[in-house]
């Protein structure tokens, strides 16, 4: 039993270490067993994946593919990107379950939602 537990734990640590490379922070460890990345691209003044559903601990990365700068700003002041010029990215790791709306503060008609559930 002890041996098995150790083995599983070691595997977990290895996964967590790999995950840490992309998503710094202790919350990443809890997400080790789940897919840890979700991408949202910004195209044509829209969040191309307007609603994404992820597990807790997932890092969502937004990439601006427009010729015009955009931002990614949480409606609840949870996160706020700097201005993203063409090709720039912003990443945020969602640790808690819930529904998180966001928008572009330059073009506020651009909105999206991240749903976090276990």
């Amino acid at each position, binding site marked *: 039993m002890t041996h098995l537990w150790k083995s599983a734990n070691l595997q977990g640590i290895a996964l967590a270490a790999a995950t840490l490379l992309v998503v710094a922070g202790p919350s990443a460890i809890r997400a080790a067993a789940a897919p840890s990345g979700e991408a949202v691209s910004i*195209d*044509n*003044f*829209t969040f191309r994946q307007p609603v994404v559903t992820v597990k807790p601990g997932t890092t969502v990365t937004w990439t601006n593919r*427009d*010729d*015009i*700068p955009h*931002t990614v700003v949480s*409606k609840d002041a949870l996160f706020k990107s*700097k*201005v993203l*010029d*063409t090709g720039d990215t912003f990443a945020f790791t969602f640790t808690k379950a819930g529904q998180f*709306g*966001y*928008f572009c*503060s*330059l*073009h*506020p*008609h651009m*909105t999206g939602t991240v749903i976090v559930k276990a």
Partner: protein
Amino acid sequence: MFDVEDNSRRDFLKCMSWAGTGALFAFAGGIGSSTGLDSALAAPLAASASKTFTFVQLSDSHIGFNKPPNADARATFREAVAKVKALPEQPDFIIHTGDVSQLSRDEEFDDARQILNEAGLPVFFVPGEHDMLDPDGGKAFLNRFGKDSFGAGWYSFDHRGVHFVALVNVADLKPGGMGNLGAAQLSWLRNDLAGRHSSTPIVVFAHIPLWTVYADWGWGTDDAAEALKLLARFGSVTILNGHIHQITQKIEGKIAFHTARSTAFPQPAPGTAPSPGPLKVPPEQLHSMLGITDATFVRGRDRIALIDSTLTA
């Protein structure tokens, strides 16, 4: 029979003359803009404007923009300023209706200032959303161009009997919304207009249109109606905006609305493209889609004439 001092009657007569002029296009003879003259819009001007004068509107210079269709927005802005400088009748001042910069970077603002200095004229600014992108949310702009302004950069001034109001509708934008003036600014506007005679000609300038040009692209201002209510009693109101990089105009009651071209890049007409991103026109077309707007108060004509001209040589 009629009391000429009776303001409501005077306004009414102005309204009637307004309605009677039909298309309301007025061109002032002798105005510079010999090329690319493609639209004009007139608004009634009260007799209290003491002298004929002109001013120029520049908009959306986007200094720092360097992608198709314009690899150098500095160069086209410099051309626009040169065009102002070459006007046979020099304007009293320039207004810049925002998006001075592309990314609110210090060097973008500084270059814009330096290029504008070449005109040797006073410049009055309002910020666009691109001017609010520094970490302090607009301080870089306000420190340079909004020193004597209130709040996010609003203010007013008088010039030769005309009252100019600079409004900011790009600060603290709400998710899902469009442009926004906010309660504090509307309250300031109420006080600013309160003591003024309704025969005073009013010019309002702000970045995003103060009427809804196209809601799907956010081309409007959510609480504009509250500002327009405060302006409704005035006999002559001209509203100058930018943001949409193309000319649109509308008359509503005594209020004339007009948007100016950009000096950097054109944007598509509402709904004609998947997004309002830059219209990637061929290089030989670019200059015909960029431009400046001359506003002329013509003595004895009871009109404000707005004349748009392109950067085409």
